[in-house]
């Protein structure tokens, strides 16, 4: 019985960690601009696909990962430069719609150039499952979880302790005021896209050995990541992690104890309930809108 519970928990944590990584990317850009970047899922896909294709060509794994992350970051910068920046004074909603366009473009580009096949990436430290009290866990899940925690710690430090991080937060709170105190808001937005693309790519690479990867994997990861981010509170690093893990664990427990048919329904009901009582999510900032 304990073993079964633990297995459901591990299963939930594994999926939850992938959602959490996706959610983090949403939070960074939201912090910098108030924009929800719906191309985030495509950055996740780009990272996983690039690493898998390079690794299949015989490029050593660490190098493949490095190239994939840098490549996705450049992709993020290009999206900002070519799609977001030309519309700089547009409403937030317009910018969000632009990111949807960018995501369709990136997905289509990969579909046409690379193809529609599914690709596998070898696990970082073998496929031999670890046994804990009768339940099993893949070493790759620990990688996902560990790297996620490291990223959150680094981001927390970046946003609260460094001048650049604070400048990013200031830009999101009030762009005009940030400009007046000498913050280069244009550069901030650019950096935030590059950073979140690199993070998304790293997430995509970490989960690729578990989920495999294909041109359309960003749709699912992006959607669940967005849900996790909303659940935890947009813009909060802790919120992204808690939201992601909660979503994953609830899904796994529902599949295990109730029925796998309700696996996707129960978390969404949970989200409705949470957002009803806490509209800004579990860890969302208590903002008051000035009228």
């Amino acid at each position, binding site marked *: 019985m304990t073993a079964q519970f633990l297995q459901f928990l591990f299963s939930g944590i594994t999926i939850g960690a*992938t959602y959490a990584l996706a959610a983090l990317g949403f939070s960074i850009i939201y912090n910098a601009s108030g924009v929800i970047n719906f191309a985030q899922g495509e950055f996740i896909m780009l990272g996983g696909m690039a690493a898998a294709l390079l690794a299949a060509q015989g490029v050593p794994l660490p190098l493949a990962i490095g190239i994939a992350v840098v490549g996705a970051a450049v992709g993020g910068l290009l999206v900002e430069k070519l799609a977001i920046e030309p519309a700089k004074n547009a409403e937030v909603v317009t910018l969000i719609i632009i990111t949807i366009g960018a995501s369709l473009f990136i997905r289509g580009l990969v579909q046409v150039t690379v193809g*529609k096949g599914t690709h596998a990436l070898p696990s970082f430290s073998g*496929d031999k*499952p670890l046994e804990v009290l009768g339940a*099993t866990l893949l070493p790759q899940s620990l990688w996902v979880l560990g790297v996620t925690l490291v990223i959150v710690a680094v981001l927390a430090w970046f946003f609260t302790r460094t001048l650049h991080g604070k400048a990013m937060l200031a830009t999101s709170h009030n762009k005009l005021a940030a400009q007046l105190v000498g913050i280069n808001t244009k550069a901030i937005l650019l950096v935030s896209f590059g950073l979140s693309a690199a993070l998304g790519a790293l997430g995509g690479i970490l*989960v690729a050995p578990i989920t495999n990867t294909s041109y*359309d*994997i960003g*749709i699912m990861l992006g959607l669940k990541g967005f849900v996790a981010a909303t659940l935890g509170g947009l813009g909060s690093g802790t919120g992204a992690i808690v939201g992601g893990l909660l979503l994953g664990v609830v899904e796994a427990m529902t599949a*295990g104890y109730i029925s796998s048919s309700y696996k996707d329904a129960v978390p969404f009901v949970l989200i409705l309930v949470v957002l009803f009582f806490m509209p800004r999510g579990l860890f969302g900032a208590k903002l008051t809108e000035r009228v």
Partner: protein
Amino acid sequence: MTRRNLLKLASAAMAALAATSMGAHAQSGDIKIGSVLSVTGPAAFLGDPELKTLQLYVERINAAGGVLGRKLALVHYDDGSDANKANGFAKRLIESDNVDLFIGGTTTGSTMAMVPLVEKAGVPFISLAGGVIVVEPVKKWVFKTPHTDRMAAEKVFTDMNKRGLKKVALLSETSGFGQSGRKETLAVAAKHGIDIVADETYGPKDADMTAQLTKIKGVSDVQAVLVFGLGQGPAVVTKNYAQLGIKLPLYQSHGVASDEYIKLAGKAAEGVRLPAPSLLVADSLPANDPQKPVVTSYRKVYTDKYKEDVSLFGGAALDALMISVEAIKKAGSTDKAKVRDAIEATKGFIGTGGIVNMSATDHMGLDLSAFHMLQIKNGEFTLAQ
């Protein structure tokens, strides 16, 4: 010239033009084969090889002189795996493209969305979808080439019976393919004396199925597990199965019958059993197998051109095209009613999917012998002993 006259003249000219082009088509123009396939979207891995196969073989047939001295012309639309769009394109094929014959409907959903239109218009229609519902009950103008999910389930149960496995856990995908498979599996289980002791599902894009498998593992008397899904989901299930160290025999459906599955699931796929047609085991077929020349030739032609492995889905498209060509030859014209009768009279046609014997009550014409039971050994599909 007044404006009215000008208009009259223009419309007369257009009518004349339309008449000549229509006339030309009806007399000696190309034989128009329409197709609506899911080349993009979730079912793309089915529709893509189907379209590639049709294009390749239409080209080859034309290079060899065409059919009845006429060239084949493929008029293709991509429904993006959306049944609503399939319906719209079917209308266009019938009403404005005036096709002589119609191949398509990659998925059961798309096919069923087009069936009422082709039935009404009276166009011979060969579907590439797996669902039994396409040909049962028999519809006058509708045929299909791929095996049905029911046949796959029956083949698996026959194999289980041989090995004395009676209590089976079912894990199916929530996609159309998986759900149709689940329905058929449950429907024929009792007939084969199989008891379904667990019935779980997973989403086609899910990243982890250990929860469902743990639940199945917890059912005390289960003897074997059957997975019904397509593409990458079953590969994840297979990996999770190995991760959890479940030792029960694992069966998959014909939905995973491509090399991609072995590539994605890796070592975890060792020992997995599945039903599949000859196409996938072309090399291990005995030399006297009637299908051997057909499947080896298709494999070679397709792989040479596209540098990727053949799949059952492309094979189904090839069978549909060749059955059509045979029927047009036999009918001696593209008269729709005559071609339909010729398709229905198809006997002993050796295709990639099996030997086809159609009749007025069977618009698919395949029996269980079309399936072989395969087992994955050392990263290869081999005939199961």
